[in-house]
């Protein structure tokens, strides 16, 4: 484990024994006498490390093993094999000092007491985490201010909107000032502006307290805004660990050129410049190799009635889709790449 690593996952595997039976009354009766089980490998030989203060996106398609890994890291699940450490603790031992160190926020679950105001949950957590009253009050005040929730904490939870509840949930999860944040889809179901506020808040907390953040999200905007580094898994196996931008450049070296037009142009004129991703009367999006970008921009400005022009990396969703597609084709991932040390520029898939 590197000396500055706060989270150390080595060759982690986790399997579930799942009862399986076909539909129908016959199969139901048969299963009473003879139950059939199947071993599901949720995580296989996963290794990575995270340093204190680092923000890491933990990505993968549905069923890739992200939530299972987070639950192992949070001490909820016992690994089938491998070793996991958070700080100096083995999570599944659930040492109270370990539980003081971490928090796990799951976007679709809540710890707030449903019929009582969030302030009662905070009082309960203050007692459970044995936080001095003055410190707890200070933390609540600071978090309430950051999240702009004011008097909401005194309304019964059931009367709050989803976004308000999520903000109050974060206060409850952070009241003990954890140094490790496991965030599983923290912005799910929130509107765009609320998502942006949550991202700002998470970044602010990370910078203020030096907390390590491991984030899973299907909203790539969350990942782009928060995580310079991503760990990508598929079928429980590591397929990439490294810099997000490097991954994007590697998987999609082309740039995305978007031009707003003052009048309709022929598609053939656009195709001379690059691959047309989309085009309508007012706007066209072209995919252009980085090496040709300068020349293409010059030619476009000369040949097209351009009102506005922007250059971006390819959307992360596309990068991920391509990465998962490459893994599924068997370019190493499903047969298991060697889970070697972190490589900032190497996609295992």
């Amino acid at each position, binding site marked *: *484990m590197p000396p500055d690593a706060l989270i150390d996952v080595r060759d982690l595997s986790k399997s579930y024994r799942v009862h399986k039976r076909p539909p129908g009354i016959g199969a139901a009766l048969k299963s009473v006498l003879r139950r059939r089980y199947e071993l599901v490998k949720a995580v296989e030989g996963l290794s990575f490390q995270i340093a204190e203060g680092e923000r890491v996106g933990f990505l993968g398609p549905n069923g890739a093993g992200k939530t299972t890994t987070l639950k192992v890291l949070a001490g909820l699940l016992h690994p089938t094999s491998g070793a996991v450490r958070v700080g100096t603790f083995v999570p599944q031992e659930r040492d109270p*000092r370990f539980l003081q160190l971490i928090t796990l926020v799951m976007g679709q679950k809540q710890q707030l007491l449903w019929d009582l105001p969030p302030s*009662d949950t905070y009082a309960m957590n203050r007692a459970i985490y044995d936080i001095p009253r003055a410190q707890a009050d200070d933390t609540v005040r600071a978090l309430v201010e950051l999240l702009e929730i004011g008097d909401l904490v005194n309304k019964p939870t059931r009367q709050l909107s989803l976004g308000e509840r999520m903000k109050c949930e974060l206060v409850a999860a952070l009241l003990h000032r954890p140094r490790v944040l496991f965030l599983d889809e923290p912005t799910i179901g929130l509107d765009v502006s609320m998502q942006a506020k949550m991202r700002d808040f998470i970044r602010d907390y990370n910078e203020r307290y030096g907390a390590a953040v491991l984030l899973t999200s299907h909203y790539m905007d969350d990942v782009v805004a928060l995580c310079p580094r991503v760990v990508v898994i598929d079928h429980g196996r590591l397929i990439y660990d490294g810099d997000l931008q490097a991954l994007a450049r590697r998987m999609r070296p082309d740039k995305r050129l978007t031009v707003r037009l003052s009048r309709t142009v022929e598609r053939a004129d656009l195709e001379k410049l690059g691959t047309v991703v989309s085009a309508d009367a007012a706007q066209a999006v072209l995919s252009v190799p980085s090496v040709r970008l300068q020349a293409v921009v010059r030619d476009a400005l000369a040949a097209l009635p351009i009102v506005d022009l922007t250059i971006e990396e390819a959307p992360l969703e596309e990068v991920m889709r391509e990465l998962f597609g490459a893994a599924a084709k068997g370019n190493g991932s499903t047969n298991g790449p060697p889970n070697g040390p972190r490589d900032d520029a190497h996609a295992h898939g």
Partner: protein
Amino acid sequence: MTGAGTSTPARPGFASELGRAARAFPTLLRIGVSEVVAYRAEFVVWILTTNMPLVMLAIWHAVAADGPVGRFDQKAFTAYYLGVLAVRLLTSNWAVWQLSMEIRDGTLSAKLLRPIHPIIALCADHLSAVPMRAAVISPVVAILIWSGWDRLLRHDVVLLLVLLASLVGAWLLIFFAMVLMGSLAFFVESALGIFELWIGIHAILSGYLVPLEALPRWLRGAADVLPFRFMLGFPVETLVGLLDRHAALRALGAQWGYVALAALAALGVWRAGLRRFSAFGG
């Protein structure tokens, strides 16, 4: 923060964890009471569904009209079943429902993330209903005192102390039995089915339906050694003066022995089950 090479400092001792839980307990109780108050209407309606002792009282009252059944005349039956109603309402808790549900749907996860043993939190949660339960049973107790004053506790202070200890013991014994059965949900899908079976046996062998003295001799023998009597019958028998000091103290010892056994069994099953916890959905 140190790396893997650094050894973990020794885990705080049991006393330290217990001290921490003790400091949190008053707040947990206060929050629990607030929750009970929030659910007050549902709570009272639910309590009022416990009417079987009154049904049994009506039946036995009619039977005893022709003459006493053993030591029980009509007044004794009245005292007994009012005692059953009061003790049952005061000491029963249904932690099995909550625990098995939380294990099955994964919501136990949130409780496992807190640095307090989930069983202690569950205990506070259910203990916080006791004040409201006490308020609800106060009219029953008033009628019991009015109608059976001449026999209650044989007017003996020692029996009063035994009663108080036996009520605490009954609550704990039921609680740990519930935790034990609820924790079976880690292993089997039908933990609540086992509980339904338990309820049936408990109704007969605890003295809930019939005073244990009125059971056939062979069944009475079984009831005396099994734990069910100590969950209900024993405190009621002490309350309505069916036990002398010697018998009550002996039963109290047996009851607390069962409390210790139930606690050990419940925590053992819990600990073994936790390794199998899948946290699906949670």
